[in-house]
């Protein structure tokens, strides 16, 4: 192998290495773009986790019934307060009617 031929082989090898490095860099960039943990990817992962948890039928049903049960309890509390309002209303009406009694008190 002549001196020139040896030099060409080295150059060819170096070019090959550069091409491989370029291909590798481009590949990494594509991978990084696709799998980089962005905010949307994180939410997606979280939602996937939640979906996994709520996908169990038993858990989902229990939560829904608990919510409605709590609402029913609150509704019962309001019902008691409305009954109290009825009593108040009756007392107020009596008090308004008693206004006339005061004006009619005899003093002779």
């Amino acid at each position, binding site marked *: 192998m002549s001196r020139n031929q040896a030099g060409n082989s080295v150059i060819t090898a170096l070019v090959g290495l550069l091409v491989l490095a370029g291909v590798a860099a481009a590949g990494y960039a594509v991978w990084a773009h696709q799998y980089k943990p962005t905010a949307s990817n994180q939410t997606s992962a979280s939602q996937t986790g939640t979906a996994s948890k709520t996908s169990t039928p038993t858990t989902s049903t229990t939560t829904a019934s608990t*919510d*409605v049960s*709590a*609402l*029913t309890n*609150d*509704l019962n*509390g*309001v*019902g008691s*307060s*409305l009954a*109290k*309002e*009825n009593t*108040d*209303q009756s*007392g*107020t*009406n*009596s*008090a*308004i009617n*008693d*206004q006339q*009694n*005061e*004006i009619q*008190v*005899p*003093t*002779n």
Partner: protein
Amino acid sequence: MNRSKLTKSLKLFGASGIITAALTIAAVPVMAAATSQLTTAQQQDLQNIINKGNQEITRRLDTLETLSSKISAATKITASDKSYLTTEVSTEATGLTSLKAQLDADTTLSAARTDAQSIFTEYRVYALVVPKVWLIKTADDQQLTESQLTNLAQKIQTKITADQTAGKAVTSLQTELNDMTTQIANALKISSSIETNVLPLQPSDYDNDHTILSGDAAQLNTAHGDNVAAYTDAKNIIASLKTL
């Protein structure tokens, strides 16, 4: 003023003072003898007025005592309003107790009549104070209900939103919840307004305008109807949520 005028004024003042003193001294035995100067029938009338007045004062004192308990039991009313009403009722009771002592000591028919009349013209226990406290108590309790309904509406909204996100049909429920919210707002507007307007009223306000409380009870009845409507909305929504 010169010296002679000053001397004349002092003499006049001295003379009038002597006359006043003489009249006062002369009046004491006259007042003491006033009762004895009444005829038997007049004495009976006097005693009847005193007895009737005492009955009315006692009735009012009992009523005021009951009112104090109601004010103490009020839950939603602010501390300052509660203190205001408590002081007002206490002042009325103190005044009536003093009036009773004054009435018992009356020796003339005119004085007894004036004191007996003042039981209702000055204190207005039944004309103003009792209905005032009841109106405020009712408005107070209504606001407690409205607070509960508001909290319930917020929870229902959370549940409806969650069901909507899950793909369930909630349009009609949302419409009913919107009506519930409107009913609560209407009721709260009335009950808070009544409390604000009625709280500062005094017996003199009633003397100036006997219709000062007219319509307030009817308005609170309207507010109660709004609260019932909101409750019915909530009841229907919750029943529907169970079936979703």
